[in-house]
């Protein structure tokens, strides 16, 4: 199959960029979206052109490295999938596909489709941890945790920090990411002692990074490759309000 691409090209941070047209021919429907870009890049390199820069690592949807906006939707049209899990069979022969980087002031474009997501790391560093003396591995079940709580923590902990929530949000808010990182510790007994401090510090850092605020639309949840629920945001709001009074 043949698809036409409109790809955001930008030489470096702060430089002007524009959408550039490419034609990807010899696309196999079973190729992944990123493999299709690999093939386009091989063509560009052969011609001596600069290949399209994009992030990827595991290519199996668990590392959180990849992420572009495909036809206006972060990670493309598939539910609960990252960009690397999208396949070309999702598109029709002759389709025009627009590919843009995640856009947010807190995610400056480094090159083409690669954005700097270090803001997420700084939010984690502000409080996304538990402080404890780690000795040897504790006995299993030495600390009883209700199944429902363990499930909740696990659901939140699925966040791979890809940033699609920020990309989808009309306000470029990072509430879904931050709340998932707060919840997966906060609902467990190990995270309880630092619960108040954690939420305050992480929210402070999130605001400092220049993310927007939450309009409670849930577009983040809709694009999240791990289907993290905005219930996490409600819990973060609760925890924050509890912590400040």
């Amino acid at each position, binding site marked *: 199959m043949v698809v036409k691409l409109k790809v955001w090209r930008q030489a470096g941070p702060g430089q002007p960029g524009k959408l550039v047209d490419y034609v990807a021919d010899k696309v196999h429907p079973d190729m992944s979206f990123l493999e299709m870009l690999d093939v386009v890049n091989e063509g560009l390199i052969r011609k001596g052109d600069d290949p399209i820069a994009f992030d990827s690592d595991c290519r199996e949807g668990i590392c959180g490295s990849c992420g572009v906006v495909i036809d206006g*939707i972060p990670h493309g049209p598939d539910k609960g999938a990252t960009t690397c899990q999208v396949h070309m069979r999702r598109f029709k022969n002759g389709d025009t596909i627009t590919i843009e980087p995640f856009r947010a*002031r807190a995610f400056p474009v480094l090159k083409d489709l690669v954005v700097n997501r270090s803001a997420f790391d700084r939010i984690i560093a502000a409080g996304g941890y538990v402080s404890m003396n780690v000795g040897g591995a504790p006995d299993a079940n030495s600390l009883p945790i209700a199944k429902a709580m363990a499930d909740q923590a696990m659901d939140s902990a699925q966040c791979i920090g890809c940033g699609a929530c920020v990309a989808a949000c009309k306000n470029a808010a990072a509430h879904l990411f931050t709340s998932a990182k707060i919840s997966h510790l906060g609902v467990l007994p190990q995270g309880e002692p630092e619960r108040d401090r954690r939420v305050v510090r992480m929210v*402070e850092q999130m605001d400092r990074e220049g*993310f927007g*605020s939450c*309009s409670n639309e849930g577009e983040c949840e809709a694009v999240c490759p791990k289907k993290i629920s905005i219930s996490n945001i409600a819990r973060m*709001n609760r925890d924050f309000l509890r912590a400040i009074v």
Partner: protein
Amino acid sequence: MTLQKALSSSIGSKFLIALTGLFLFLFLVGHLAGNLLFMLGADAFNNYAHALISNPLILVAEGGLIAIFLLHIFKTVTMFVANRRARPDRYAAKKWAKTKNDRSRKTLSSTTMILTGTITLLFLVTHLATFKYGPYYETTEGIRDLYRLQFAVFSNPGYVAFYLVAMGVIGFHLWHGISSAAQSFGVDSPRWTPRLIWTGRVFTVAVSLGFALLPIYTFVMGRN
């Protein structure tokens, strides 16, 4: 963290927006209940209005209401500006992720809150000028005859249409506003949230329809 700083944070701001919004909604419910006395006739309506405006506490209530309004406006406008700033480079092609699956609450209502809010403010100014600061009629008992004023205003089909549109806009604002406020307060449970969203929408429709009923009722009664 000081309380002032906390209330300026993204979460604190949304909390204040939700809280002031909730108060404004409760005011609307009270306002509607009072207005519906119109249907009981001139005496009931005018006596109620007189009791309300002759009470010295009305100044405190009005002052509080204005403060709540101003805080709601200040917080939403500053937040709107900050949110625009959070994405300086727009997307060339952006679609609602709602098209991807049903895990989004995004509606036309949720995307136009700043617009419907602004229209509501403009309506409010006109509304106060028309009624509160409008023509002063007096009953034979010497109290303000708002019953007559309402007939006078809504004998004009233009006013009726304007009010109907305004009630639609306010309803549109509340359609997202009520459930959004609950989420900002952190009220959420897998079982109750869907019901809460629908309860908010039922309240919205009830209040907007209730208010919309009055201009129509007055217009039709005035004709007969």
